């Protein structure tokens, strides 16, 4: 083999292999005796491409690096007992809302879900280490706002929040904006807001029993 690994590459490899927690570039640089972060970054990148085809991968999650098994081998490694906490539907939705909207207050979460959030739901997410209180919103009542943690990114295999599935599309469609804002935007274009919009007739006719008052946003 021609790709004899360099000294720094080997050192980073060994350190991340032995580490019990993911490590940031800075933590690695410090651990390896005060190196330049840029050097470490380069070694990481070489290592990452070395491992890309292998049974274990080197990945970055929320600015921290670790080794993990290749996702396509999941079937070989799944244990008899599931190690992953099974989340309730409520918790799953609350987690998604926090991740896509962060930081959000509980009231904002509730207004999206249309239902009160039991205290236990947030507790479960905080206990899992995926959600943390992130200060207070400076509005009357100063509600606590919540955000996700680096462990959240880690667990769900996200390099950063930008990797949240579909977040760009949701943002572009305005679906991450509050209803009030969307209302204003829609009312601004009231001219096009026509309950009898004929474009939808064909579609609606399939589903509905003739009493078609379906309206759509353009």
């Amino acid at each position, binding site marked *: 083999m021609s790709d004899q690994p360099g000294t720094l590459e080997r050192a980073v490899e060994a*350190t991340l*292999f*032995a*580490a*019990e927690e993911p490590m940031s570039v800075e933590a690695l640089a410090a*651990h390896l005796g005060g190196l330049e972060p840029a050097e470490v970054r380069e070694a990481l990148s070489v290592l990452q491409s070395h491992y890309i085809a292998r049974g274990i991968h080197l990945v970055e999650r929320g600015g921290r690096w*670790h*080794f*993990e*098994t*290749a*996702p396509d081998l*999941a079937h070989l*490694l*799944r244990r008899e007992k*599931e*190690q*992953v906490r099974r989340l309730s*539907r409520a918790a*799953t*939705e609350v*987690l*998604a809302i926090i991740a*896509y909207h962060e930081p959000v207050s509980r009231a904002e979460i509730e207004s*999206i*879900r*249309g*239902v009160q959030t039991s205290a236990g739901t947030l507790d479960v997410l905080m206990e899992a280490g995926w959600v943390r209180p992130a200060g207070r919103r400076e509005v009357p009542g100063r509600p606590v706002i919540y955000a996700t943690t680096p462990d959240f990114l*880690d*667990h*769900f*295999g*996200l390099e950063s929040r930008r990797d*949240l*599935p*579909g*977040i760009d599309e*949701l943002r572009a*469609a305005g*679906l*991450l904006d509050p*209803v009030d804002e*969307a*209302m204003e935007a*829609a*009312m601004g274009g009231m001219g096009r*807001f026509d*309950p009898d919009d004929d474009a939808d007739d064909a*579609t*609606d006719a399939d*589903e*509905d*029993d003739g*009493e*078609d*008052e*379906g*309206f*759509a*946003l353009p």
Partner: protein
Amino acid sequence: MFPPESARADSDALYLALDGWEGPLDLLLDLARRQKVDLRQISILALVDQYLGYIERAGALKLELAADYLVMAAWLAYLKSALLLPKEEQEDPSPEELALRLQLRLQRLGAMREAAARLMGRDRIGRDVFLRGAPEGLRTDRKTVWRSDMFALIQAYGQVKARTAPRIYHVANRPVMTLDSALERVSAMLGVTLEWMEIRDFLPPHASPELKRSALASSFVAALELAKRGTAELDQEGTFAPLRIRRLKAGAAA
């Protein structure tokens, strides 16, 4: 709405699933999804009918429905009638606005539900990907390196020695009048007269203040000594009044 054969199954599904819905908005979203169209193109009136239908059937099955499901049903019934009213009788906000708002909320909830599903479907640690089972772990041991130098060492030793060395005290030479010389001086001066004299008169006139102080003390002690010997007598009219002294005539009683 649904083919008759599936309607039966649906009401069972409702019965079974009531616990599963996270409130009326969730139920509405579920119903809206069954319209199998983009949520932006949903028929609100059809949705209202479906919801009211479910609530009715749940009532017929004598299911306990949480209050918020009934509140939603009442609101939807109102929305439906408003939507069907002639436009000129409509209030503000218009029923279309209310319907739009409902639709926007459903879209947002729908988006989050979908996002949650996609999130949960990712390769998760402990389910799809695994971390190293037995990492050796990294440890950082703090170690203190002590530093000192030769000067500090010998300086410290010098100070120890200096501190514990035997000490010799010198008292600096100060101008004093000894008791002996005061005695001599006072005796000599008393020999000159039989009159009372103030003790201050015995002090050397040109002495420095320090020497004067010493001379005063010594002369006082000398006066006491002479009184004791019976060669002088002392007199003071009051506290802090001038102290006077005169020679006793030889043979007179003390």
